[in-house]
Each structure stands twice: as C-alpha cells, then as structure tokens.
C-alpha cells in the first residue's frame, strides 16, 4: 500500500511542479487568483476530507478492537460524510460558472481545474473504496487480527486528504 501511496504522491508532485512553473511565469495571475475562488467551498471540502478521515480512523480502531458493528457504523458515516465532497464540488463548479471561471479565464483557473479535477478523480476512487470496504466488512472479510484491506483503504483516503490540504494552501488560502 505504501508503494501505491508514494506513486500517488509522485503523480501529484508532477502536478505541483506544473503549478509552481505556471506561478513562476505568471505571478500576478496567481496573486489575484485566490480571491476569485469560492473560499467557503474550499473550507467546506477541507472539513469534509478531514472529518471523513477522522471517522475512518475510528472505524479502523474499532475493527482492531474486534468491534465489527461499531467499525461498520464508523465506516458508513465516513462514506456518508465523504459523499458531501462531490456535492460541494458540483456546487463549486456551478458557482464558478456564475463567476465566468472557465478554461478561458486565465492560467490560474486552468491550473486550478487541472489539480482539483485530478484530486476529485482520486477521491472518487476513495469513496468507491469505502463502499466496497463497507460491504467487505459487513460480510465478515476483516478480523481484528487481519484488517489490512480496511487499513489500506484508510491509508489511501488519508493520502488523498493530505493532497487536498496542500491544494487548499496553494489555491484557497492564498488570498
């Protein structure tokens, strides 16, 4: 799992290189860019990511303590909270459309879409993984002695969470 996480980070390191190369050459666009974004949406997505991550830690801890039912409840709640992310993203895209933030709105907006859409794709895999993990957990596939599948799912989601925290600092928290 750690190999997969490192590969995901390598992929996003390339995306970050694109961000910093663009910013190096177009500093004014990036200095003015954050004020054009929906800050509340960015804060909301951050809250959703860290909250679903916390719920996943509770699910893993419960499974390790051999409390399967509690683990399933924590995981279902993590999935429910995580599903707010696509809803917020949809709302953000609509807000962007209203502000004229499309692919023709400058280099900052193009890079913003490039990174955030890629992150959205990775998070979608994580949400599907949570749904799959919940089904596996309910079917008794994990035990207190061997819950590597659930732990790997949590590691992937936390890695995606870390990427979002970086994206947040690069775009939304740079007004």
């Amino acid at each position, binding site marked *: 799992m750690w190999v997969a996480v*490192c590969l995901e980070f390598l992929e996003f390191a390339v995306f970050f290189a694109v961000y910093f190369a663009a910013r*190096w050459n177009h500093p004014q666009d990036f200095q003015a860019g954050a004020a054009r974004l929906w800050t509340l949406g960015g804060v909301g997505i951050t809250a959703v990511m860290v909250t679903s991550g916390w719920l996943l830690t509770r699910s*893993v801890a419960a499974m390790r303590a051999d409390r399967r039912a509690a683990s399933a409840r924590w995981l279902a709640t993590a999935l429910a909270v995580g599903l707010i992310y696509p809803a917020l993203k949809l709302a953000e895209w609509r807000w962007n459309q209203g502000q004229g933030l499309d692919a023709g709105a400058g280099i900052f907006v193009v890079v913003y879409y490039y990174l955030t859409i890629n992150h959205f794709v990775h998070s979608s895999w994580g949400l599907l993984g949570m749904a799959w993990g919940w089904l596996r957990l309910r079917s008794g596939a994990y035990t207190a002695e061997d819950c590597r599948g659930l732990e790997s799912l949590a590691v992937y989601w*936390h890695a995606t969470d*870390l990427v979002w925290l970086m994206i947040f*600092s690069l775009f939304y928290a740079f*007004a």
Partner: protein
Amino acid sequence: MTRPSLNPSTTTLAWWTLLALTGLSVAVAGIGHQGSVRIWMTAAVAAIAWVKAQLLLREYLELRRAAPVFRRLIQGFAALAPLGLLVSALHELAR
C-alpha cells in the same frame, strides 16, 4: 504481533486541530497582500500547511508503520508545497 493503535482521544484532538488550523490559514491569508507583509503571510500559510500535514501523517496515516524509505518519501512530499510557496513568494518579492 503488537499492532499500533489509533487512540480515539488523540485522533479526535487531531481532527479538531486540523479544522482550527484550516480556519486560521484562511484568516492569515486575508491579513495582507503587499510587499514584506505578503512574505510573512505566505510563511504563515506554508507553516500551517506543514503542521497540518504532520498531524495527518502522524495521527491519521500512522506513518510510523511505514518502512523508512517510504517515511522519507512521504515527508518529502509533505514539505513540497510549503517550500514551493515560500520560494514562489520570495521570487515574486524580488521581481
């Protein structure tokens, strides 16, 4: 086998801290936009991002469970954006 545990009270504290730091970074970012003020603002946002990453790596991701080579690679990634922010801000100040 001894398995590292995710202490609920510790992870809950980390969760609240991550939320608080997110609010703080937005507040700091709104302070100032020009000259040396911008550099300090950027440094604060970068530092907050790095602290959030460390919290997440330690309390959520259980990075201590990974082999040393993965720990170093992941720590390197966590430092990438904060360092890039600082370098970019210095470059923009010097222009």
